[in-house]
């Protein structure tokens, strides 16, 4: 049983083309949802830990492995 869960959310930077987000926005409009503005698609990574993780190491891994700073931003929650 994991003692805690951390969620790392990775999103494309606003300056990077996100065709997936644009296509999803179009699909939502076609499905009848009004008022749809810009849509961006990112990813969410859930990590279970037995004990509280090493925050500095977690930050490093979020930056170097889970995201690519050239094209993405990330945030750590939990």
């Amino acid at each position: 049983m994991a003692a805690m869960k951390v969620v790392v959310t990775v999103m494309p930077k606003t300056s990077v083309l996100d065709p997936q987000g644009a296509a999803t926005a179009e699909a939502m409009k076609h499905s009848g949802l009004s008022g749809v503005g810009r849509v961006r698609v990112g990813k969410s990574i859930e990590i279970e830990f037995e004990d509280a993780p090493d925050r500095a190491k977690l930050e490093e891994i979020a930056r170097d492995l889970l995201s690519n700073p050239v094209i993405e931003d990330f945030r750590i929650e939990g």
Partner: protein
Amino acid sequence: MKFAVIRFPGSNCDQDCVLAVRSFAGASAEFVWHKETSLNGFDAVILPGGFSYGDYLRCGAIARFSPIMAAVKEFAAAGRPVIGICNGFQILCEAGLLPGALVRNRGLHFLCEHVWLATGTRATAFTRAVPEGRVLRIPIAHGEGCYFADDETLARLRDEDRVLFRYCDADGRATPDANPNGSRENIAGICNEGRNVFGLMPHPERACHPELGSTDGRFLIQSLLNS
């Protein structure tokens, strides 16, 4: 000249690369498994195309942590030639050996087609044998081939003459219509500051035999052999 063709789990253009290299007199090629840690005895390295580690997280994101990559970095730092093709280009960007990143194609579709390429510079060990003014016909096969870099990086690539190939029309014009995937400034291939690490999305190894419809890829390998 002895080429190492690195095999990651999920590489699928490794055999094409070895066959292409071996078709040149004076060139040999061997597969090197990604868990190896040495590139001793090799004169050039190719990171082939494919879907290393299933493209999980991002293309090339996990492969860049493979044991062989420390040796590839040392090899590159020693000024020796490294070529990344397609997934290999993505891995070189993820590893920080080349600037920028490859993201999802503008049109979302996986593209598998022949494209035209204009040579941006012949002042590299990879392009010196390309005839001046020749527009190359080489295939692409990718879903994430849209080259992205910030304005500052793009300016540097231009100023330092590091854009080796741009997508263009049959007459060599790099127009927006000739850009298959939305790459910034139609960029198809770049090199590092030292000009010895080269990444490109098109597949020169698939254009090395007349049976495949084009032999323009041979200019790239020939360039290295001439150096």
